[in-house]
């Protein structure tokens, strides 16, 4: 195993060669906000919150912005995770997410246990400058145990990935495009009719917001232990039960 040395926020750190910038930053205690990343499943680089600046090494060329979750470390790389520019972009991205659907924290099952809400606090979002799109979204509670509320979905596709990669059912996928994209079950049937669903509940564990929830949970009651998923993956791949 080759060790790579790089600089993150002026701190010299060493990493395994297959590590991503996000891996090594987390190990070194440098926080990088993420939403679509979930330990144990493949990264997709979709939410753009983990963008970091990689020094170009030349004053003539601007620094490159790369998502930390899918960018592998390179020897001698100089990375900045919290420049003013990045902070500004992150806040704007979170504002865009809040403007997209109907994220009403006060009536949400995940209030107080929501990664989107937490990120909003982290990036200092005290209000949203963009006009709310206010789309009419579906709530599907046809499944016996769980429900999905599209009003709160941020299309991180964690549910799609845990269902495909860990459970192996691939009940979830994405349909439509642009702002009309929606997570769907099976071939856009209602969840209750989605025969591939094993009701394992991994999507419920994975969801960062209140979009996928256990039925019966009311406001602020929807807490979950997302680390269960990485424990499962470690158990399967390394045959070690930790956690």
């Amino acid at each position, binding site marked *: 195993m080759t060790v790579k040395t790089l600089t993150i926020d002026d701190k010299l750190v060493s990493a395994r060669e297959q590590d991503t910038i996000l891996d090594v930053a987390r190990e070194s205690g440098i926080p990088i906000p993420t939403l679509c990343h979930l330990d144990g499943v493949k*990264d*997709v*680089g*979709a*939410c*753009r919150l983990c*963008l970091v600046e990689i020094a170009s090494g030349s004053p003539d060329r601007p620094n490159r*912005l790369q*998502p930390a979750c*899918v960018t*592998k470390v390179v020897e001698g790389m100089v990375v900045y995770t919290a420049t003013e520019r990045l902070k*500004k*972009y992150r806040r*704007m*991205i979170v504002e*865009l*997410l809040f*403007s*997209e659907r109907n994220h009403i924290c006060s009536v949400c099952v995940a209030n107080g246990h929501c990664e989107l809400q937490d990120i909003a606090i982290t990036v200092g979002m005290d209000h949203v*400058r*963009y*006009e709310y*799109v206010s789309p009419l979204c579906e709530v599907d509670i046809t499944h016996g145990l769980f429900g999905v509320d599209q009003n709160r979905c*941020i*299309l991180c596709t964690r549910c799609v990935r845990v269902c495909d990669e860990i459970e192996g059912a691939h009940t979830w*996928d*994405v349909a*439509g*495009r*642009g*702002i*009309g*994209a929606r997570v769907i079950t099976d071939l856009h049937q209602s969840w209750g009719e989605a025969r591939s669903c094993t009701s394992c509940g991994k999507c419920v564990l994975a969801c960062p917001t209140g979009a996928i929830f256990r039925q019966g949970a009311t406001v602020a009651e929807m807490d979950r232990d997302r680390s269960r998923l990485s424990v499962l993956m470690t158990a399967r791949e390394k045959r070690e039960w930790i956690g």
Partner: protein
Amino acid sequence: MELAELLDIAEEWQKAQKPIRICCCTSTACQPTVSLAIKQALEEAVAAEDLEDQVQVCGVGCLGLCGKGPLVKIEPDEIVYEQVSPDQAPSIVAALKGETSAASKLEPEHPFFTRQMKVVLEHSGNIDPERIEDYIRVGGYQALYHALHEMTTDEVVDAMVSSGLRGRGGAGYPTGLKWATVAKSRGERKFVVCNGDEGDPGAFMDRSILESDPHRVLEGMAIAAYTVGADQGFLYIRGEYPLAIKRLQKAIQQGKRMGLLGTQIFETSFNFRVDIRIGAGAFVCGEETALMASIEGGRGTPRPRPPYPAESGLWGYPTLVNNVETFANVASIIRNGPKWFADIGTEGSKGTKVFALTGQIANTGLIEVPMGTPLREIVEDIGGGAPGYGSVKAVQTGGPSGGCIPADLFDTSLDYESLFRIGSIMGSGGMVVMDETTSMIDVADFYVEFCMDESCGKCVPCRVGTQQMHQLLTKIRSGEATRDDLDRLEELCDVVRHTSFCGLGQSAPNPVLSTLRYFRNEYEALLSDHDVV
């Protein structure tokens, strides 16, 4: 198939040509239903005049001046008749005997024809795209033979590198370098993909090439496959191009039948199978990783790069992805040599470029000019300026990823670097001309809305940012926006451009940014808190 056989076919087919050829455009722009009726009427007229042993009527690909179609060309006189109708057929045939034709004639000296330089389109409008023999007649597949028998793969790569050809899909990545990377990549198998998912509004270069000279693209792909070590190719064509798909299917069958595609091509160990994949109407599938996802049968969304397709593409194997026009240049480069190609164009941009000239301009259609041609020459000479008494205000190049170039910059040379410097891009070749009645904010909003509709929805800045940009532009257009809104729009352009996942989002703000750069006064005049001076 041996070279001798190929040359025999060419000779035979050349002999079969009659002294006078009446070429009818049968491409999409000339409405095949009408042009086929014209062709039939011309055949009947030739028969009626008893000229069958001297005159031949043939269907050909695009003749270029699409706005004046249906077009009919007489060879060898190079006379082109415009807006032909079937009932004019007898008079066109009568004109062959010196009578005056009732059909309106375009002179061969028309600047639209004389100012162009045709490489990619050299056979477009001259040969029958549905007959492989006609392509062979004009030298087709000889470059492939030459590459297979007389060049090593390294030599082909060298030729491509020294030709200076750059990707014609828009980004302008050096083609030779890409080929070299794929050739060097290790993989149990490799793929060659032709990106024919042409989606820019107003662009139809690739459609026309595929409809007019499909074998040229197949030959380019075969040479590429030999060079990089691939045995399978995919032609990804958008479903909106049924005629191109039909002609390619026919071309692939003909190629296989003659042993120019398939196994043991030209009696060598080189095998190359080509399959067509039809796009389902998503603009983002023009992005190479989304295109590959679509070929694999998945949802057409981009994936992170690196790894680049050259290392890990279709099903994880090294894959060469080039645009239609890029492949269409290959045979010419091999046949005429890289130096010939490198002598055309500018220092950084070699060869010619095909443009689809549309909008408020007298001569709309498909043109090909050397790189470095001043934009003014295209707009004023070839294009004939704005129709009527209007004047041209701006030209949009590069589609939704490009920008608007104002009239006072028309002396800009058309090459990758110069266009980038003035805030636009070469793009795939769409060129939309606008006269002074056009609101540049309407134009910007049109493209932003296009990107909003075409965003795949994967990343937040593109999915939501384009929506918010469109909302702000709508507000500005309605006269209700303030200076704050304009600031917010500029800030959004910045975030969408720098944080979006793929090229679609990264370039979506370009039409706004370039119109803000050159036509800021139009935006400001619409603000509700605009100071009236």
